[in-house]
């Protein structure tokens, strides 16, 4: 391809191994991240076929979805039999196939999408895959990163490639700057609110604009993390000085002459002027407010100052879906969002379980107490985030406020471990999915930013964090 290229075009072109007549490509995969839930059947498939992992040194495994996050897990026993079987299977598979592994007992263990960047496995210009839809997170580094299914996990393990057709290019530009109290989470939710959960289907999104450039690497990861909730195959942000500064010195980042060579290439990783985008969405940073979700789809987003909508506000199949959401969520149209009472707060996940997220929550919670009867947990995204938060005194702020301070894992983001909502419980969560039953059967989820979650923990209802700053 000649002519001006997008960032996505450039990374794609650098990884094509072969192209078939119909345009299907074999794409080389630089990093393959693996967790315990979507990999057992893939390793089993390799065994049955007598195949090996082609590039074990580019394959990084870590258990996260199932692991308990309570302090007693150090005893090494996972109470739930099936969870234990899956984690044991990953232990064994990692050992048998010789891939890089961070077991539960390792301080570097954590959510796979937090561990990858933290350890410097994720670098600009790479292709990164994982049997997990939130692999999009790594796009924050200007890496082409997306989720794959278990059959594809097996394919990548065996061949270090993926069969892919190129997606279309989509640009999401956030102009101007964010107002105080508005965060990366509000950007990403607002984009989904504007485009819908299928708005990005068939596309790779490049996020750009001054409000994106303003974000830290943590914030950029939050934005890209939810590209999948907008239906996109991946989300990307062009690497810049902030990216290089974050990467430099990480355990698996290049060093010395290789660093210089890498840097030279990374600096070319940006969309050329005049490159074509098939779809463009522009939001003004100043127009974005702190938002929450009211329904059971991530597109059900409204500014915290809004009211619960009525099904008649929608059209087509969404009318029925909105009614179903309202019934499930136990909400009445016209009710103010700030009147919605909550009983549980979850701060964590690959969307918002990084140090900056914990700092934002702690800034609101400092010197305050959570509402009586509230169950609130803070689950750091990795053992290293946990250690840093303890060093910075954030952990003590959470504990003093009355919150639980947990070990690293996915936890209540998908409630595969014992952290679950009971039917009818209502949770303010910094995670990424508010689907029916996501946090436990019958549990009700409102998605929001860490600062907003902290505010809600204090007042016991959804709250405009700007009133507490």
């Amino acid at each position: 391809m000649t002519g001006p290229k997008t960032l996505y075009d450039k990374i794609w072109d650098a990884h094509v191994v072969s192209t078939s007549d119909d345009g299907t490509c074999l794409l080389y995969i630089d990093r393959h991240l693996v967790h315990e839930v979507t990999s057992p059947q893939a390793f089993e498939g390799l065994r049955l076929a007598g195949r090996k992992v082609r590039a074990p040194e580019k394959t990084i495994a870590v258990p996260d979805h199932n692991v308990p996050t309570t302090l007693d897990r150090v005893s090494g026993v996972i109470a739930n039999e099936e969870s234990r079987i899956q984690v044991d299977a990953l232990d064994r598979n990692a050992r048998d196939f010789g891939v890089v592994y961070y077991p539960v007992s390792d301080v570097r263990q954590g959510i796979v999408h937090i561990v990858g960047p933290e350890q410097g496995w994720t670098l600009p210009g790479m292709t990164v895959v994982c049997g997990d839809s939130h692999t999009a997170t790594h796009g924050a580094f200007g890496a082409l990163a997306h989720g794959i299914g278990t059959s594809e996990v097996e394919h990548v393990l065996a061949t270090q490639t993926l069969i892919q057709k190129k997606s279309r290019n989509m640009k999401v530009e956030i102009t101007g700057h964010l107002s105080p109290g508005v965060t990366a989470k509000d950007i990403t939710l607002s984009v989904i609110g504007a485009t819908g959960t299928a708005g990005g289907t068939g596309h790779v999104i490049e996020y750009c604009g001054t409000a994106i450039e303003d974000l830290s690497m943590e914030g950029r990861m939050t934005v890209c993390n939810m590209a999948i909730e907008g239906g996109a195959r991946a989300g990307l942000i062009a690497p810049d000085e902030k990216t290089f500064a974050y990467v430099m010195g990480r355990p698996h980042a290049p060093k010395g002459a290789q660093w210089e060579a890498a840097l030279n290439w990374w600096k070319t990783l940006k969309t050329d002027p005049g490159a074509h985008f098939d779809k463009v969405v522009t939001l003004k940073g100043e127009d974005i407010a702190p938002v929450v979700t009211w329904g059971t789809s991530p597109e059900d987003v409204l500014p915290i100052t809004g009211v619960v909508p009525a099904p008649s506000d929608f059209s087509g199949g969404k009318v029925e879906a909105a009614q179903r959401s309202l019934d499930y969520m136990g909400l009445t149209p016209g009710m103010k969002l700030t009147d919605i009472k909550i009983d549980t707060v979850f701060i964590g996940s690959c969307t918002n379980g990084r140090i900056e997220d914990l700092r934002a929550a702690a800034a609101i919670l400092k010197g305050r107490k959570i509402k009586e009867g509230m169950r609130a947990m803070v689950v750091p995204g990795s053992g290293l985030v946990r250690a840093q938060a303890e060093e910075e005194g954030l952990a003590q702020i959470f504990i003093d406020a009355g919150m639980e301070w947990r070990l690293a894992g996915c936890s209540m983001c998908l409630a595969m471990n014992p952290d679950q909502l009971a039917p009818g419980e209502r949770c303010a969560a910094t995670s990424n999915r508010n689907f029916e039953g996501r946090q436990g059967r019958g549990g009700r989820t409102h998605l929001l930013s860490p600062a907003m979650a902290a505010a809600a923990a204090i007042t016991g209802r959804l709250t405009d964090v700007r009133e507490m700053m």
Partner: protein
Amino acid sequence: MQKFTTLTGIAAPMPLVNIDTDMIIPKQFLKTIARTGLGKNLFDEMRYTQDGAEIPGFVLNQPAYRKTEILVAGDNFGCGSSREHAPWALLDFGIRAVISTSFADIFFNNCFKNGILPIVLPREAVAVLMEDARKGANARMTVDLAAQTVASSDGQVFPFEVDAFKKHCLLNGLDDIGLTLEKVRAIDSFEATAAQSRPWV
């Protein structure tokens, strides 16, 4: 992988939009290390009460739809997680084709790897088939992959598009890994070149 050629069977209507992978197979069933056995928990939280009793109103619990092989679904079917447990559960139940106006990307790909055909049709066509599916067990649709058509029980025929490579694999039940390994030389030489140009990878 099981081949997919033609299929004539009962179609069930699920008009809800954004049916996500947590609805298709809730996470408590992801703890398996096998690919089979998930059919009984397909749509678990819509299908059963908390204590495991069937919810009579749910379509797949109705006598006419117990042997459903085709789903006609609302927009954006399969959104959410990458879990291949979703197509595994559909397949284990006996569903081999899903018809909708749109699918989420990863789910769409995962279907093809498991012998399930996801079919994208225009809104009007899905509406006609949705009505047809509402007729129950006597209404049998026919999907013909080679001809790329869906026929309603009363013989209305709708053509659909499908990627040529995916169609070929599905028609012949081909395993991707075997096909890719035939190109191992190309992968070797890509790696050798990359080791020079991007040695830090």
